[in-house]
């Protein structure tokens, strides 16, 4: 695939994904494609999922949905760019599904995390959510809990939780696409409108190390070293570089575990940077101090993360 066909994410966008567990591209897909997809879904009705292509799990992403309407969605330069930035160019198909929420539905889907307990620490999947129609509040758009993606739970184990401070219900223009970390807590809302709500979801998996796959031209060692500030400084918005404050932004629903969330974000960020030593503020360095008999705190000259040394 040519680079010109994909708009890779920048470092700030990837930091946002690390912290929130998702990226949102509003009104991305042209209305002509949205309308064609809705016509297809309306005609197919309950058989819609038998009429989208069948791919075996593990099918290369590049071979999926060829010459179909949905190819226009997943090959949109910004979506393909996000996929390449997070999973690399060799990602593979997991599954896909058209979700239909019928009008006047009597209940909402419980909060859950997709699939089962996922113990992977060095890899993650993404889920592409395509909303072909405008989603209003009464249509019960997908609800999600920002920043919940790093919590290890078993699917609907969290169904008991009805409401969270800071929960988000998707209300969006037609053609909106969201890219979710596979662990994000979510659920379908209750559709109290008189219209069906459609959402297409595609899950993709990586086949390579998910490090430095985005556009890293805005990244250098000096910038990374500056993220290590005295504790609590990263969350201050008084820095020119937004990345530390993005990574240290707490969610309204965070409880006493919130600092552990920050630590887990740093671990995730280390994975993506391919840098086992970087830190934001002093959360990880404090824990590692003296562990190996050597200070983990390095000077900028000692730091090596495999990215350009110059700007």
């Amino acid at each position, binding site marked *: 695939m040519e680079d010109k066909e994909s708009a890779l994410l920048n470092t700030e966008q990837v930091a946002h994904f690390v912290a929130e567990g998702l990226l949102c591209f509003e009104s991305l897909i042209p209305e002509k494609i949205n309308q064609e997809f809705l016509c297809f879904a309306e005609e197919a009705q309950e058989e819609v999922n038998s009429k989208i292509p069948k791919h075996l799990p593990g099918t290369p992403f590049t071979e999926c949905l060829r010459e179909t309407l949905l190819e226009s969605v997943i090959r949109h330069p910004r979506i393909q760019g996000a996929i390449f930035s997070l999973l690399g160019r060799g990602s593979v198909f997991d599954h896909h599904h058209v979700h239909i929420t019928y009008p006047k539905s009597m209940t*909402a889907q419980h909060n859950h995390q997709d699939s089962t307990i996922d113990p992977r620490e060095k890899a993650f999947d993404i889920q592409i959510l395509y909303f072909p129609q405008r989603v209003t509040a009464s249509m019960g758009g997908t609800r999600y809990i920002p920043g919940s993606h790093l919590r290890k739970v078993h699917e609907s184990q969290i169904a008991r*939780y009805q*409401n969270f401070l800071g*929960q988000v*219900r998707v209300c969006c223009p037609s053609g909106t696409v969201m890219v979710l970390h596979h662990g994000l807590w979510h659920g379908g809302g209750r559709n109290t409108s008189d219209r069906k709500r459609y959402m297409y979801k595609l899950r993709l998996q990586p086949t390579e190390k998910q490090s430095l796959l985005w556009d890293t031209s805005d990244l250098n060692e000096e910038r990374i070293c500056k993220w290590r500030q005295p504790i609590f400084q990263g969350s201050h918005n008084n820095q020119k570089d937004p990345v530390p404050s993005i990574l240290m932004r707490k969610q309204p629903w*965070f409880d006493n575990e919130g600092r552990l969330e920050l630590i*887990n974000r740093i671990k995730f960020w280390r994975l993506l940077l391919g840098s086992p030593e970087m830190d934001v503020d002093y959360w990880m360095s404090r824990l590692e101090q003296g562990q190996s008999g050597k200070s983990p705190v390095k000077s900028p000259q000692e730091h090596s993360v495999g990215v350009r040394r110059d700007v």
Partner: protein
Amino acid sequence: MQCQQLLVLYLFDSALDSKVVAWSRWDGCSDQDHYAGEEDRPPYPTGLDALKDGWRLIQMNPLLPPVKGDEYTTSVLKYEFLFEKLGERVGG
């Protein structure tokens, strides 16, 4: 018929007077159902406020030490407080 209303508050920490960060409600006394994601404001600012409004605390989470090797893993919400009110069922 006597019935039970349940209120589950997830608090910031193990103190009953810490703030509510998540909540759920089940009402066995009426036909009003509560669905996931439909309320953005908690019914009370803290657990203690629920207590002062007549809710009876019937369970709080045990305080467990971290599991060795798993100290930094986050999972379910830890500070769960279960309240009840008893009432008479109305409606169908």
